């Protein structure tokens, strides 16, 4: 037998809630006509039905996992690709920055400017 989907379970929970509310309304409208025992019994059943209904809503929420698994994996893959693309595009700027740093050191060495050499190295590794 095929399993129920999250949406089917949610639909069942909605229907159950309507029936439960109808039972509650019956008791509230006939409160004075019902005996104390009848009131107590209907109140108990009403309470239990409410508990089952809320459990059904939770069950439906849990079942969504089965419906979304492949979509989650697809979006995860695409997000990973966007991160990779971002990394490679910002990588170009890093390469330019690093090359500029190396060039600065080279220029300082060639001009024999020791202060500049030290400053450039600090900037590169900082």
């Amino acid at each position: 037998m095929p399993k129920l989907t999250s949406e089917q379970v949610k639909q069942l929970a909605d229907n159950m809630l309507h029936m439960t509310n109808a039972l509650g309304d019956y008791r509230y409208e006939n409160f004075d006509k019902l005996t104390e025992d009848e009131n107590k019994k209907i109140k108990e059943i009403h309470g239990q039905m409410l508990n089952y209904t809320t459990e059904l809503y939770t069950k439906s929420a849990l079942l969504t996992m089965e419906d979304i698994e492949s979509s989650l994996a697809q979006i995860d893959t695409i997000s990973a690709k966007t991160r990779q693309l971002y990394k490679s595009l910002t990588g170009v700027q890093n390469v330019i920055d690093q090359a500029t740093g190396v060039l600065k050191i080279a220029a300082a060495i060639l001009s024999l400017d020791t202060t500049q050499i030290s400053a450039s190295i600090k900037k590169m590794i900082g």
Partner: protein
Amino acid sequence: MPPLEKKLTLVILCSFAIGCVNLKHVSEFSDSSISALANYETLPTSFAQACRENCRQEHIANFNVYRTECDCSSDEKADSITRLIYTTSMQYFEGLMQISDNTLTYYETSDLSGILGSGNFGPVQLQEEDVKAHSKIATLVLRAFSDGYRRNRIKQYIKEADAPLQVLIHFLRLNLNGNLNGKLEVQKGKAQNLYFDLVNDKSLSTYERTKFAEDYFKRISQIDENQRQLQRFDEVLDEIAKGHQTLYANLDGLDDNEVKGRLARLRYRLDQAASFLSSQK
């Protein structure tokens, strides 16, 4: 025009023509979607919280203050699944926003040209003017290439993501405005089930019965407020889903005035809804 410049112009034009995705719209829509989605964090209730409140109410109804543990593990799991859908959707929009940011491929080469123009490279002497001119062209070519590549990638990602994203948003809505909202409806029923007898208990004083009625209405208005916020967030999710569909359906015509107008209206509604939700914190 010298042959080299002709070639460069051709390369740049080709790169722009490869994928005509207007990145500004993608970036702005992603930005608005992120702000709107982030309101998930401020939702006033959750599955686990609803479970704990129901459990507490049961103990109150049974006059029980001893051994009051509540098993809400299933609801905690439901919250984890719902959060997983939210974070996955959020990560997608964050990635999309990062890669569609227009400043991403504005490569800064002024430092490099400055060094090349003014540095002492022994026998090699470079004219500062020439270096600047070449650097400008190199930057332009670099940007054209990376932009063309980037536009094609973004177009492909939006196409690939639309169907699964629609599924994720659909189930996020089902869980929040469907299932969690249903649990809040049950809470209302439980409150009525408890308070009805107390309010109608003629052995109690009028003051006590009035107080119970007041407590009941206070509780109902709290739940109503939580439901309103879920409803509002549901509208936000609907706008995000529609917005992504509009992006997907018009990837090649994002410069069209009608499409631009539709996207601008969408963003406006998203921003409005997001700021309304933020003001409810």
